[in-house]
C-alpha cells in the first residue's frame, strides 16, 4: 500500500470548511529559531492567533527537513486545517511537500518549495539586499571612495537560497550605486552575532585594508560592528547588512545618523510576512477563498534602510 495515495494538491481545508474562525486549526511549521528573525515571527503569529481566536500549532525544525516532516505530520494528526510552512530546504523537500500538500493546503512563508503547495508569501531577498547595497554605495561614494574592498559574513554551508540571494542582491546594489568592489574575504558567521564577531575578527586580521564588511543579516553585522567599534586600526572599516532590520542595528543607525559606521540594512519584516500568510490560511480554512485563488508567489515589502529613512522604521518597542 501507499501512505499518500494521491499527488494532486488538496483542494480545500484538510477537515472541510469551518464556519467559525474559532474552530480553525492552523499549523505553523517554522524552519528554525536560532536567529531572532524567526523567533519574532513566532511571537507575532501567536499574537494574531490570540486576537482572532483560531488555534495555532507552532513547531520549529532546527533547520532539518527530517524534523520538519515529523512535525507537519504531527500537526495533521492533530487536525490542522491549513499549514503555514517556512521550508527548511528549497530544493530538498519537493517530494516530501508534494505528499504533504496532497492532504492539506500549504501556505509558504519566507522560504518555499517551488511547484508544491498553494501559494507563498516571501520576502524578496534579492531586492532587499539590492536596496541596502545601494544605500551603502551612496554613503561610501559620499566619503570619496571610488572603489572598495569587501569582506562578507555569510550563512552556514546549508544556506541554499536566502543567503545567496541576499549576497547577490547587495553586490548588485553596490554596482548599481556605481561603486566598483573587490571581494577579499568571505567567511561564515552562521547568522549568529557571536560567530559573526569571530569570523569578522579573523577576516579583518588577514585583510586590515577592507573598506566594508557586510553580513547577510544584522546579527552577524552587529558582531562585525563590535570588532571595528573603537579600534584605531579599523577606523576606516564600515559595516552593513543586506537584510533583516533588527532593532539593535536600527538603533545604531538612528543613534549615529549619517556619520555612523553602520551604513545600511534591508527591511525584512517578520511581522508583515506572518500577518499575510496567516490571513490567507484563515481565509482558506473558513471557505472565504479557495486554494486555487492564489498566485504561486507574492512578495512582502522590500526596502533598504539607511540613515536617511531610519525614522520611518525604527521602533524601540518592537520585539525584533
Amino acid at each position, binding site marked *: 500500500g501507499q501512505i499518500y495515495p494521491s499527488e494532486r494538491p488538496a483542494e480545500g481545508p484538510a477537515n472541510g470548511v469551518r464556519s467559525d474562525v474559532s474552530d480553525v486549526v492552523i499549523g505553523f511549521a517554522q524552519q528554525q529559531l536560532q536567529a531572532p528573525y524567526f523567533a519574532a515571527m513566532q511571537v507575532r503569529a501567536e499574537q494574531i492567533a490570540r486576537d482572532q481566536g483560531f488555534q495555532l500549532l507552532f513547531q520549529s525544525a532546527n533547520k532539518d527537513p527530517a524534523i520538519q516532516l515529523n512535525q507537519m505530520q504531527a500537526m495533521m494528526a492533530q487536525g490542522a486545517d491549513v499549514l503555514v510552512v517556512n521550508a*527548511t530546504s528549497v530544493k530538498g523537500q519537493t517530494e516530501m511537500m508534494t505528499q504533504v500538500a496532497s492532504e492539506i493546503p500549504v501556505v509558504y512563508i519566507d522560504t518555499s518549495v517551488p511547484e508544491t503547495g498553494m501559494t507563498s508569501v516571501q520576502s524578496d531577498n534579492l531586492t532587499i539586499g539590492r536596496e541596502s547595497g545601494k544605500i551603502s554605495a551612496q554613503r561610501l561614494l559620499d566619503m570619496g571612495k571610488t572603489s572598495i574592498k569587501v569582506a562578507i559574513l555569510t550563512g552556514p*554551508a546549508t544556506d541554499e537560497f536566502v543567503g545567496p540571494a541576499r549576497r547577490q542582491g547587495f553586490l548588485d546594489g553596490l554596482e548599481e550605486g556605481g561603486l566598483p568592489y573587490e571581494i577579499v574575504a568571505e567567511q561564515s558567521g552562521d547568522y549568529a552575532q557571536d560567530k559573526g564577531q569571530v569570523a569578522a575578527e579573523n577576516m579583518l586580521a588577514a585583510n586590515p585594508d577592507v573598506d566594508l564588511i557586510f553580513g547577510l543579516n544584522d546579527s552577524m553585522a552587529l558582531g562585525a560592528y563590535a570588532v571595528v567599534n573603537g579600534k584605531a586600526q579599523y577606523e576606516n572599516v564600515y559595516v552593513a547588512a543586506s537584510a533583516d532590520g533588527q532593532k539593535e542595528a536600527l538603533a545604531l543607525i538612528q543613534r549615529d545618523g549619517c556619520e555612523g559606521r553602520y551604513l545600511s540594512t534591508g527591511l525584512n519584516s517578520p511581522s508583515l510576512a506572518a500577518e499575510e500568510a496567516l490571513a490567507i490560511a484563515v481565509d482558506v480554512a473558513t471557505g472565504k477563498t479557495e486554494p486555487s485563488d492564489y498566485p504561486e508567489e507574492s512578495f512582502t515589502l522590500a526596502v533598504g534602510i539607511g540613515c536617511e529613512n531610519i525614522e520611518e522604521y525604527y521602533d524601540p518597542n518592537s520585539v525584533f
Partner: protein
Amino acid sequence: MTATPTVPPVHHHEEDTSRGTAISTWLKGQYALYILLALLIVATITRGSIFWGRTNLTNLLLQMSIIGVVVLAQLIVVLTGGIDISVGSALGLAAVVAAGLFGGPSVLLGLVVALGIGGLIGAVNGWLVAFRGLEPFIVTLGMLALARGLVYAYGNGIPINPEAADSYASFGQSTLLGIPVLALIWLAMAGLIAFLLYRTVWGRRVYAIGSNVEAARSSGIPVKATLWSVYILAGLLVGLGGWLFLARFASGTSTAGNLLELEAIAAVVIGGARLSGGYGKVFGAVVGTIIFAVIANLLSLLNVSTFLQDAFRGALILVAVTLATVQIVRKRKTNPTQPATA
C-alpha cells in the same frame, strides 16, 4: 562511566530454572521499558485518540526507522567500549552521494552506493581505532567533520535530488500489511544484529572485548580484526540508514543526519547499554529508539511551545532516568560492593 544499574545482583546461587522467575528477573532490569510505558500512559491520557490513531502510529514508525538503524550501529560500537559520533554525518554523506552519483538513476543502485559509502567510512574509523589504537571519540569526531564537509562540498550545500526521486518517494511510503516497509527493514536489521550478537562467536567476541579488552587479547581473541569488523558493520548500517533517508525524503539534503549521533547514543544508553562497553542489549536499544521518537512525537502532539520543547525534553529525560533508578538505587544499598561509578 557509571555502572549500569541493570547489572544483575551479584550473588545468586540457585539456577533460575522456573520460567516465572526468569521473566520476573528480566522485568526487573528493563527500566527503559518502564520509561516507555510511563510515556505511553501520558500520551494516552493527554492525546489518546490522536496518538493511537492510525495516521500517527504510521508516522511514528516512519520516524523511528532511520534513527533506529543508526542506533543499532551505535549499539555494536558502544558494546566494544567505543563510541561513534560520525554516524550522523556518515548517513548524510551516504544519502547525498547515493542521490547524486550518476544522477541517482535507480533505487537499487542507490542502495549499493549508500552501503559502499557507509562501509568505507566505517572501515576507516575502524582501522584507525583497531590498528592505530586511537581513541574512538577523536577519530569519529574527525570523521564527523570530514563527512559533513564532504556533504557540503558535494552539493555546495544545495540538496541533491536523485533522478529516481519518484521511485524513492513511492518506495518510502509503501506499506506491507499496513506497516511501513521502512519500519520493517529496521526491525529486520534489529533481528539480524540480535542474531549476530547473541548467537554467534563473533557476538561473544564483541562482548568480551568490551568487557575486558586485555583479557580478550590474552585469551587469543582476534581483538583488532573483531573491532574492525564492528566498525565496518556499523558503517554499513549507517549507509543503509542513508538510503532509508533517501527513501523517506527523496532528496539528499545537506542537513541529512545532522545531530543524529547524540540521539543515537542517548537511545543506546537509555536502553541500558554501558558506555564503557561489554553490556547492552538490542531490545534495550530498540526501546530506547522508541522512547525518543515518542517524546518528540508527544511534544509535537501536545503542541508544547517551541521555546519550551527543548526544556521539556530535557526535563523528561532527567525525570525518567532518575525515577527509573529509584528502585535500583535502593537495591544497591543492600549491595554496596557494586561501584557507584565503574
